[in-house]
């Protein structure tokens, strides 16, 4: 399968949906992060209940090429538990904010998962054989009576049913006073960064009792606080470079070679604003909820409340491309502020060859924005389009005036059905879209 050319030549069809059908959603089941690993063979989800579920792509059935490879449960474990900080009288949520996979080095898989305060390195390994024929123990583990042992034998490995085990290998605690919003593994495969509202720390994957602070934007007087860090990511190839975005709509690129403390940025990406257009909402909707480098490392994408912007790393004064996600919401900002939806943090992602980007919206809609063909489409993740290989029909929202057939009016949109988290397979046209408590997998239609 190709890396996915134009997103709009591609017809997307339903492949699978995971999760309960009932509308009564328990808090714990709310999906909070979705991430493919580097090969795309594994797909991890984290939820508000602190649990991680990993799906594995089945090896393709050669005799049935029409039957696309499916993702089935590979492993599931409780990553984080709710905690109570007695000293500060604070509750620490177990919600998994982010999962990031490490590139595979050996037979085991490793991922980092984080809640608001603690990052954990998990090892996921397979066991498909076990030793049998111990001298001192029975097969069920009971010790044999020494008096009955008359001969010696050599234990041998025998095959067993595949068991996938997840074990926490490192726990990185006490690095953050504020809430962690991002983690990012460095291309050097030895370090990673974690970012909270005011600080960014650099960790070594092997060392849990120390971390270096590389960015600190906490003002001496908290009354002077004007912006917070919203997301951060390492450059995919340059191990000295990372970016972080802010609640004011700026992105700073930092070079760790320049100094140990990167409070002074190397580059500042900011689109000039027309002061006459400024309103009470301007700063809130300019807050960047996600920043992602392109796979080729030449661009980065940012998501703010109403748009997606593509920036060329060589041009700081404006983005090279801007796409409207749901411009029709601009005339609804007052009610979106009142119901807090204006603070929703949408993520965004690139396809394998950086030609198409995807982001979520409301009413379980998500948007595919084709950079090469300058076209966009709105699709929906819903139980109504769940027939195997059913092609997704484009959706249209009517902003005002006469509503055409098949269009949905802005006022009918369900703002409780948000798609905040999406992921794109690194090589193939396979996407994972998370609604509140369901995970949808869509694939490119194969003729």
């Amino acid at each position, binding site marked *: 399968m190709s890396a996915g050319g134009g997103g709009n030549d591609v017809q997307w069809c339903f492949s699978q949906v995971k999760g309960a059908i009932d509308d009564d959603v328990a808090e714990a*089941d709310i999906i909070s992060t979705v991430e493919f690993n580097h090969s795309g063979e594994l797909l991890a989800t984290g939820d508000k209940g602190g649990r991680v579920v990993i799906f594995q792509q089945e090896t393709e059935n050669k005799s049935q090429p029409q039957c696309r490879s499916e993702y089935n449960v590979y492993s599931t474990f409780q990553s984080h538990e709710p905690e109570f900080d007695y000293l500060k009288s604070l509750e620490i949520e177990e919600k998994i904010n982010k999962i990031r996979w490490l590139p595979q080095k050996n037979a085991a898989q490793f991922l980092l998962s984080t809640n608001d305060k603690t990052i954990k390195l998990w090892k996921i390994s397979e066991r498909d054989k076990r030793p049998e024929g111990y001298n001192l123990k029975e097969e069920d583990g009971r010790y044999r009576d020494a008096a009955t042992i008359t001969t010696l034998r050599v234990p041998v490995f025998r095959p067993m049913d595949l068991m996938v085990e997840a074990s926490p290998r490192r726990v990185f605690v006490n690095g953050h006073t504020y809430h962690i919003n991002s983690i990012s593994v460095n291309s050097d495969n030895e370090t990673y960064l974690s970012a909270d509202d005011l600080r960014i720390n650099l960790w070594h994957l092997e060392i849990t009792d120390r971390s270096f602070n590389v960015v600190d934007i906490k003002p001496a007087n908290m009354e002077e606080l004007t912006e917070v860090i919203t997301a951060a990511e390492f450059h995919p190839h340059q191990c000295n470079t990372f970016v972080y975005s802010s609640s004011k709509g700026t992105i700073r690129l930092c070079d760790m070679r320049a100094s140990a403390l990167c409070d002074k940025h190397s580059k500042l990406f900011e689109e000039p604003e027309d002061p006459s257009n400024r309103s009470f909402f301007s700063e809130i909707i300019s807050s960047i909820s996600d920043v992602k480098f392109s796979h080729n490392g030449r661009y980065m994408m940012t998501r703010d409340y109403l748009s997606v912007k593509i920036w060329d790393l060589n041009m700081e004064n404006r983005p090279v491309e801007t796409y409207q996600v749901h411009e029709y919401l601009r005339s609804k900002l007052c009610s979106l502020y009142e119901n807090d939806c204006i603070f929703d943090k949408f993520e965004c992602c690139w396809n394998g060859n950086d030609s198409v980007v995807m982001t979520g919206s409301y009413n379980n809609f998500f948007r595919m924005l084709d950079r090469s063909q300058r076209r966009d489409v709105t699709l929906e993740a819903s139980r109504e389009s769940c027939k195997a290989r059913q092609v997704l029909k484009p959706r249209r929202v009517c902003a005002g005036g006469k509503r055409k057939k098949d269009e949905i009016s802005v006022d009918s949109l369900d703002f409780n059905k948000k798609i905040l988290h999406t992921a794109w397979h690194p090589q193939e046209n396979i996407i994972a879209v998370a609604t509140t408590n369901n995970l949808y997998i869509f694939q490119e239609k194969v003729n």
Partner: protein
Amino acid sequence: MSGEVQASTEEQQEMQDTVVSPEKAEEVKLKARYPHLGTRPGGSDLLRKRLQKGQQKYFDSGDYNMAKAKMKNKQLPTAAAEKTEITGDHIPTPQDLPQRKQSLVASKLAF
């Protein structure tokens, strides 16, 4: 007379603003409902609210012990009928804390 003329000019300006920017129209709506919005000084309220997410004091052992000392002979205040109500003079006790149910149930995605 002149007052009326002035009002209609303002109305016209507002109408123009609506035509020019739906965002500004929304702002006008919001300010009408919450006239004190954004007038308080001292850093962004929104930012501070964000930093304080989850920072709710449930139980202060100092308050609790002081209250216990004061009421040597009396009964300790019993838990409020509604467990979420921890306001005013009521000193929360460990029994008042909402039970944090741990997720011992497997994720529904794993089925």
